[in-house]
């Protein structure tokens, strides 16, 4: 006779098996690509699990004609500069939205929210024309400008969420003691919100790093970023999967590390506060 207790044990075992299967499905593709990056060209075609690993793929992708090193540099600069510009601007606005009541606040916030959901294709066309006229095509500056468009809504909402979570008491005490509002922001809010700012910064870095469409259209030679570098392998397709995998790893691994750093605030950031 199956008692309640045995049934519960059985259920638990089934659940664990299901979870392991889920994890396998989620991770196997990633691992497979990672493996391919270390394979010789020949091994890729034979679905081998055991093989002689080689680092040759990595050295080849950094050389001509792929020149991943330049693209890596471009991606890093664009993402870093975007974050450095976006975070302070977003923080200022986020603080104001959180602590003050502004006229038209809800409308402004909705607009900022809505721009996140606009498809990139809609705004890339005017940008292309404008950049062409201003000579910003194929420049890192141009890329930074468009990435600002993308990350700003995330940054504002994420940071606002963090500031909302900071108790207002310390600020009010400081104001009573005689600090000016700007001093309060500098001395009290910024240190307390620092983890949130870092999280938002990392989040925006990841978004800018992985950005694809704008980079595809607005760059051609000099300012090409890593994800587009991936597309360049595509042209000689069928031949160079191991190289593509190596490039993929270079794109992925930094993002994994960053993602692990912010995993606790991840959900809050992506849904912009709709789910805590």
């Amino acid at each position, binding site marked *: 006779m199956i008692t309640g207790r045995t049934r519960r044990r059985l259920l638990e075992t089934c659940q664990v098996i299901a979870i392991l299967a889920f994890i396998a499905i989620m991770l196997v593709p990633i691992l497979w690509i990672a493996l391919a990056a270390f394979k010789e060209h020949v091994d890729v075609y034979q679905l081998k699990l055991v093989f002689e690993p080689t680092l040759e793929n990595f050295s080849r992708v950094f050389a001509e004609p792929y020149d991943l090193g330049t693209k890596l540099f471009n991606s890093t600069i664009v993402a870093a500069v975007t974050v450095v510009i976006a975070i302070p601007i977003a923080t200022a606005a986020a603080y*104001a939205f959180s602590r003050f009541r502004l006229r038209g606040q809800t409308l402004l916030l909705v607009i900022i929210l809505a721009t996140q959901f606009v*498809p990139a294709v809609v705004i890339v066309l005017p940008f292309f024309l404008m950049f062409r006229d201003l000579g910003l095509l194929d420049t890192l500056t141009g890329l930074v400008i468009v990435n600002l468009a993308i990350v700003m809504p995330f940054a504002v909402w994420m940071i606002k969420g963090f500031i909302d979570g900071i108790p207002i008491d310390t600020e009010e005490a400081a104001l009573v003691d005689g600090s000016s509002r700007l001093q309060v922001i500098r001395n009290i809010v910024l240190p307390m919100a620092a983890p949130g700012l870092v999280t938002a910064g990392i989040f925006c870095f990841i978004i800018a790093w992985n950005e694809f469409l704008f980079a595809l*259209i607005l760059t051609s030679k000099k300012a090409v970023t890593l994800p587009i570098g991936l*597309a360049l392998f595509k042209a000689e397709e069928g031949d160079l999967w191991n190289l593509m995998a190596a490039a993929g790893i270079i794109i992925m691994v930094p993002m994994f590390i960053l993602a692990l750093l912010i995993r606790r605030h*991840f959900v809050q950031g*992506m849904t912009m*506060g709709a789910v*805590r």
Partner: protein
Amino acid sequence: MRDRTLKYLLVAPAVLVVGATAVWPLYESLRLSMHAGRLSRPDFPQVFVGADQYTWAFFEQPAFWNSVWVTASFTLVTVALTTLLALCFALLLARGGRFRSGVQSLLILPFAMSPALIGVSFRFMFNPEFGLFDAFLGRLIPGAENINWLSDPTMAFWVVVIADVWGWIPFLTLVLIGGLASIPQETQEAAQVDGAPAWKVFRDVTLPQLLPVLAVVVILKAIFSLKTFDLVFMLTNGGPGNATQTLSHYVYFNGFKYAEFGYASAVAWLMVIPMMVLTYFYARFVFDRE
């Protein structure tokens, strides 16, 4: 400086950035859509054609409707599949314990892969000669070895669906786990004591309380599905033929392969409308919690 002035100054830079980089291009795009123009013409964009390009899309472009169909069916299928699977996994992982928490941490990893990267990876794995999935599924389902996944229109569609669902499940699972955690445990225990078996506890108590979060998940995923470009570009580039050409890809094709900027802008603007509707509902949820 008084707070009254300061607060507007604080907000101004962000509003300016958003205005210049998002709002203005939207307006400009609308303007473009009402002017004919090939990019190569020196007088581009010149001729005002009003709503002609919109009507042209609706009535004379089967490719447009193909994209609409592809996008709509893609969205419906991926939203349904991803939500369902994410819910199952969230239920599996919601209970505490080190094992489950560890697994939750791992869920972030697939998300750090951008859709473009996922596209490439899945193209690799579904390659009929040496793809991992091709081999795996070929062995599992008789007759499947002969399928050339990415050359067959129907199959290619499903591969794109699978890749998309695979990419989004981890994120949506995490969101739903957060949602499940916010449901008071007491309501579920009370139902257990009251006499409900596990499935009734879920149906009568857990699910109704999860509905707001589920709605957020569905809306979010719908918006992301409608926008899909990167994945399609890297996985199938719209093919075979235009079997997997989503609206975003269609716009890209017309704008940058055929250089029909005006037309592409028109189609792009047509995409904006369902987005706005979905954003309205999403905003409702965000502001309800404020």
